[in-house]
């Protein structure tokens, strides 16, 4: 039996838990806590305090786990993901909150270094009226044109599937490149 995993990361409230919930075949093993203090309370009631995880079984001997990172601005959990079987990662961006874009860029930088594996970015909450367009977010994040930034609605399964597939194509592409 082989276990592989994809990590879903991004700033507080970006939709990481929702993303995993939309595709996981098990109830997301969630570690939500009620938020008791601070500005963040105005945004939502619960936040993820440890890794979330969801599962997609492929066949009798292959399982894909989706790991969601906690929303707090700390990186202690990094050591947890630095284990066997990581394929790549997804950085979710809350398209409706430009004040979090800087943090998203910091997270991307950190992951590129701790976990130098293929990745894609997803501009989440594209269904919201106040969402920035993908092209504007690309500029705001100063992304290289080679990097994939996909529109996403984490509550919609097809949209989540699309993001995951794009990451897997990216991984395939990297594997082919490394054979040259």
């Amino acid at each position, binding site marked *: 039996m082989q276990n592989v995993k994809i990590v879903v990361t991004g700033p507080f409230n970006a939709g990481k838990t929702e993303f995993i919930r939309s595709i996981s075949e098990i109830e997301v093993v969630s570690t939500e806590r009620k938020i008791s203090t601070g500005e963040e309370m105005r945004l939502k009631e619960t936040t993820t305090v440890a890794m979330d995880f969801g599962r997609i079984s492929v066949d009798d001997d*292959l399982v*894909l786990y989706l790991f969601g990172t906690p929303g707090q601005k700390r990186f202690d959990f990094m050591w947890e993901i630095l284990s066997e079987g*990581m394929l790549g990662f997804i950085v979710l961006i809350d398209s409706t909150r430009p004040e979090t874009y800087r943090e998203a860029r910091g997270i991307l*930088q*950190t992951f590129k270094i701790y976990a130098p594996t293929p990745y894609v970015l997803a501009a989440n909450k594209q269904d919201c009226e106040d969402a920035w367009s993908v092209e504007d977010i690309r500029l705001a994040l100063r992304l290289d044109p080679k990097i994939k930034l996909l529109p996403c609605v984490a509550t919609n399964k097809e949209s989540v599937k699309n993001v995951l597939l794009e990451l897997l194509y990216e991984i395939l592409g990297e594997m082919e490149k490394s054979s040259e």
Partner: protein
Amino acid sequence: MALKGNLRDFSVTQLFNLINLAKKTGTLTIERSSEVARVNFREGKLAYAQLSSEDNSLPAILQRSKKISHNQYQVIQSRAANMTDKELGLLLINAGYITQADILNSLQQYLISVVRRLFTWVDGFFHFDASLPPPDDRIPIRIDLENLIIEGSRQIREWEQLQEEIPSLEMSLKFADRPDANMRKLNLSVEEWRVVKFINPKNTIKQIAEATKMNDLEIRRVVFSLLQAGVVELTRPTDMPVVGIINRITTPQEREAQVSLVNRLINRIRVA
């Protein structure tokens, strides 16, 4: 209730705000690794501030603000070593060396500079002692806290932004490989040069901060400006473990196995 804790949970600016609003009198002591700061307040106004690492005698302060020369400083140090600041101040004014306004200005500038440095402290233990009044051998000063608090809040925002840009200090730096980059032509500050000397994937940013005796805010500022200038790039520390299936592929057979694995995943997700 005792006013004590760690700056990580309650910042210097927040403390100043509290002292200002409650019009407190007393002494705030902040301790971190090798340094102690004492800040005195009278009725919610800044009365005095000193750092353990710095000569804060009146002659030293006057010399730093260039109101007296180095020679004058040495003469005063040797002849007036036992005088209090108040006595010495009077003596200098009466001798026509300096005006009262000069002394008060220099002291104010100095106290503000100490407070500015305290705003860069992002951790350290603090306690406020209401039974410890401002030292009475010092020349009394009263500085309103409001403007300092505004300045401090700006700095907190800067700190938060820098933490977002550079979330972890466990990363290393390397020089950007730009053939056109010529370090000598760059206009680097003293701090930036100090950091540049340690740039090497073997050193984490944290280790560089220790070697250059910079705190978390100072090192992030320097690293951020070097990143912005395109001089350096973040990189993995050389002793960090290798992760990721892709990084472990060494043989064509392994590659083939991994490619087939990814294809199985793709087919599975398509039908999900």
